């Protein structure tokens, strides 16, 4: 049942997940004029005062820090909407309501650099954390329902949530799979291949197989 990875090493570090989330697009409102940027990761701009434009999160934060733009929080990032989502998550057992691919990480970025752009930042943040807790709990406690199929759908889970549940869920599912499918365990194959060896009955030390 032991997985091949050591339990303490996450597949992705939190910093790596963060790195990936930094490419998510967000709307900014520049307060300066700047020619389009032709990056390896894509073309952005042109930047004109008061004209909203979409840029990756890392660029938004870089510009915000230099006082060159305001960040526009996405529509879903309001207290009303998040409260609704949280209620939905609590009520429905199976389905996950809200596409939070970038919610949490976005929230932290914005919290660090653009607090003034978002009303009720504190509430928004704690709502997103509550949503996350409800979801992680739902996925992890519902594992055995899926053990027969050896697969689980996890709609709309964010990359960070995936990373949190992965070490546990992966190992647990592996255990379910193994106990549900004893005939698929390699030990049986090995036992039968040994039988053929026994047939020629060579004297040998009991080696570790």
């Amino acid at each position, binding site marked *: 049942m032991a997985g091949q990875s050591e339990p303490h090493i996450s597949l992705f570090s939190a910093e790596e997940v963060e790195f990936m989330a930094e490419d998510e697009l967000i709307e900014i409102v520049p307060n300066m004029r700047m020619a389009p940027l032709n990056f*390896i*990761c894509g073309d952005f701009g042109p930047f004109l005062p008061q004209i909203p434009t979409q840029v990756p999160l*890392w660029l938004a934060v870089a510009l915000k820090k230099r006082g060159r733009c305001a960040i526009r929080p996405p529509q879903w990032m309001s207290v009303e909407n998040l409260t609704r989502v949280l209620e939905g998550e609590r009520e429905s057992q199976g389905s996950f309501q809200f596409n939070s691919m970038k919610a949490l990480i976005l929230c932290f970025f914005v919290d660090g650099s653009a607090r003034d752009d978002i009303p009720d930042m504190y509430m928004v943040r704690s709502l997103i954390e509550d949503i996350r807790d409800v979801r992680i709990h739902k996925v992890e406690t519902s594992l055995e329902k899926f053990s027969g199929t050896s697969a*689980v*759908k*996890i709609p709309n889970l964010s990359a960070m949530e995936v990373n949190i549940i992965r070490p546990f869920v992966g190992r647990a599912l592996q255990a379910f*799979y193994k106990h549900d499918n004893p005939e698929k365990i390699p030990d049986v194959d090995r036992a039968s291949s040994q039988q053929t060896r026994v047939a020629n009955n060579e004297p040998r030390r009991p080696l570790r197989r």
Partner: protein
Amino acid sequence: MGSSAGEWSAEQIDDYETLISTTDVELLKKAWRNEKVSPEILPFEEALVKRAKEQIQLMEETVDDFVESGHDPLIASLYQMDLDRAQFLLRSYLRVRLQKNRPRNPSGFAIEKFMFYIWKTDTYRNRLSMEEEKFTERCIRDIGKHLEETVLSNLPDNYQSVLNQSVISEEDDMVPEPLLDTFVVAKCERTTRPLYLDGSRQSTGDDHFLMVPGDLCILRYRPFQEELMSGNISLV
């Protein structure tokens, strides 16, 4: 992301492709994630790596020009950030493949874990780049030599192989193999035919197990090898 379920035409798939992977950075990120998550080595992304290297080199020259010509330092620094990110991705991709040849393993004994297996399995060996092949060959040579000098030459004649427990072993019974029955987190990118969560090709009549583009699932890796190679799913 993506549309609802059902049959996808070739054009739709192409559209979807251009929509989600417009840049080599996106492709590289996907390749890095796939490689990091999958329990086996995947085919080397030769063309992609070549393109990425060229773009990085070009961008380095651009940034140098900016700095020398006294261009707006803000713009130069933004281009530098973009460059740093692309380089980080490329390095991570190349590195994770080498670590796959030599996975970190705290029990020490298995540092050389999959090298021997990759070497004797043509499918896997063909997935290496030329540099990786050289690297693997040298590792095998060095580790083999080291084990021979320190341990194997002191054992009885029948027990001197790096790969076999003894001369009567019928197979390379000391070569660890990748465990393909591990569970991975996968995203359905597109469907050229119906994909079911358990890897089966026939409907069980329960659409709950049907995957549609955008779906995120935890599934057993083995039945989905082909789907990963053809880009129908990606790993996260």
